[in-house]
């Protein structure tokens, strides 16, 4: 069986800094893969290379067997791959509901049809469903910029699911989210994975969150994969302990 996402030999340097050096891994349909590693180990850079925000110096990325290396992010997104960024990225001037509609609108019909069609581009019902699912319904008409940090983080994650993507990459979805909300978020993500079979790759520093959510982990240190396997195993790996304690 071919993997849903196939990453081969990705390399990326910034000047003299080798942020990612030869990373390869596969993601199978329906799994939740965690990517962990110390600060500056190249996790976000790896995501950006996979998703076209950065062009890797070397290596290839395949989605469903198709080479998508350095494809423009908007094209990749329309092929069914979504993401969130490490720093919160909602559109503060739009309402929560508008944010969700925006996240889905380019995936339905032609651009010309959208100009002449409904204002919500036919995404209204889907947006409502997502608001309910992430328990943001009573905030739907609030400007995203006026929501609390945790609520914005939930909205940010919800936006990644509006396009009906089969593969979603989340960069620190739990960063800055409080404990109750954290359990909520984890449970929502698990529910989506279970109910719709969406595949996840999640970067996260919160170990408890990662251990509970992910079925498999990759550990990065200084741009290389130093360990890979089920959470319980990785946790005991001496190389991993060393990498974390070394920092």
């Amino acid at each position, binding site marked *: 069986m071919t993997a849903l996402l196939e990453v081969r030999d990705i390399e990326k340097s910034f000047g003299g800094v080798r942020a990612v050096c030869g990373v390869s891994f596969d993601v199978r349909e329906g799994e939740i893969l965690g990517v962990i590693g110390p600060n500056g180990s190249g996790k976000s850079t790896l995501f950006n290379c996979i998703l076209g925000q950065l062009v890797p110096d070397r290596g290839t990325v395949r989605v469903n067997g198709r080479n998508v290396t350095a494809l423009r992010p908007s094209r990749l997104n329309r092929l069914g791959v979504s993401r969130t960024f490490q720093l919160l990225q909602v559109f503060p001037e739009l309402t929560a509901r508008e944010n969700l509609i*925006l996240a889905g609108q*380019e995936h339905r019909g032609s*651009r010309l049809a959208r100009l002449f069609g409904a204002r919500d581009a036919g995404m209204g019902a889907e947006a409502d469903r997502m608001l309910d699912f992430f328990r943001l319904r009573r905030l739907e008409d609030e400007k995203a910029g006026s929501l609390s940090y945790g609520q914005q983080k939930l909205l940010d994650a919800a936006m990644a699911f509006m396009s009906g993507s089969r593969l979603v990459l989340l960069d620190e979805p739990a960063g800055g989210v409080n404990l109750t909300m954290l359990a909520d978020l984890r449970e929502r993500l698990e529910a989506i994975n279970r109910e719709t079979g969406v595949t996840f790759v999640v970067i996260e520093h919160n170990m408890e969150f990662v251990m509970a959510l992910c079925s498999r982990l990759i550990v990065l240190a200084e741009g290389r994969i130093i360990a890979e396997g089920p959470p319980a195993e990785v946790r005991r790996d001496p190389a991993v302990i060393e990498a974390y304690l070394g920092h």
Partner: protein
Amino acid sequence: MSTSTSLLIGLLLLVLLALAPVDLNDFGVPYPGLRRYGTYILTLWLVTAIAAMGVNLIVGYAGQETLAQAAFVGIGAYLTAIVTKAGVPFGVAFAASGLLTFVIGIALGFPALRVQKHYLAFVTLAFTVLCWLVFRNEQWITGGVMGIRDIERPTFLGWPLRNHIRFYWFVLAITAIMTFVLWWIVRSPWGRAFTALRENPLRAESLGIDVRLYTLLTFALGSAYGGMAGSLYAPLVEFIDPSPFALGPSLLFMLMVVIGGSGTFLGPFVGAGIAVLLPEWLRAWETWYLLIYAVLVMVMMAFFPGGIVGLLSRLVARKARS
């Protein structure tokens, strides 16, 4: 505001504007109607507002930058003057002005994909200078500093528009249509995409929004509004020379949008109104005019970044809450 309320208010304004130059005493209303000069100023306001709407789309909605609008107005004005003098019907000249500036707008949008905002201002500025030089130096076609005189007002479906009131109505009708079109665009999903472009292009791109295409589209549409405004400007003033299409006026378009309320739908109308009327009101103080204008802009930028429309809607919102 709901769709039907907006449309209703728009329609009401349209009727009031249409009646502005009409003597209503015959209908028992003690209003003599605007005179010839007043009607001319009102028409100039509409034409200016069309061009300012284009700038507002590029700057206010999509968050780009342009100092080229006067150049596009110039292109539309010169094209219309030259071809209508050669016997081409006005309708064709108007459409051609829109089309040509749409295409040039796309070309001018390309630097926007590469350079940061402030550099973009310089690029569009250079374009304005280039156009101005062409208008001034290519005498064989533009008449150079002598300009082009005796530009005919068109006939519309066999209805001559020589009369200033008729021409005003004609411009009003076109302004209404163009306003409706832009209103439709900015409230459609396209408008949402433009906002996304302004607020966070990186995130927009990751959500499947083709940032490149939408950026070029705003430049094309905004510039075409400039070109079509120019196409109306030529027969309005009946004489064109390079001076209204220079750098200063290009900057003025930007200021209109800022003062009126960048990114608000009515901002360009308010800004254009001030730009057209202020010189009339302050005529007596000729030398002070620019100074007052400059102070106004600085105060606006410092205290009311939302412009006059932004300020008004804030006041209305506060009233509604209390």
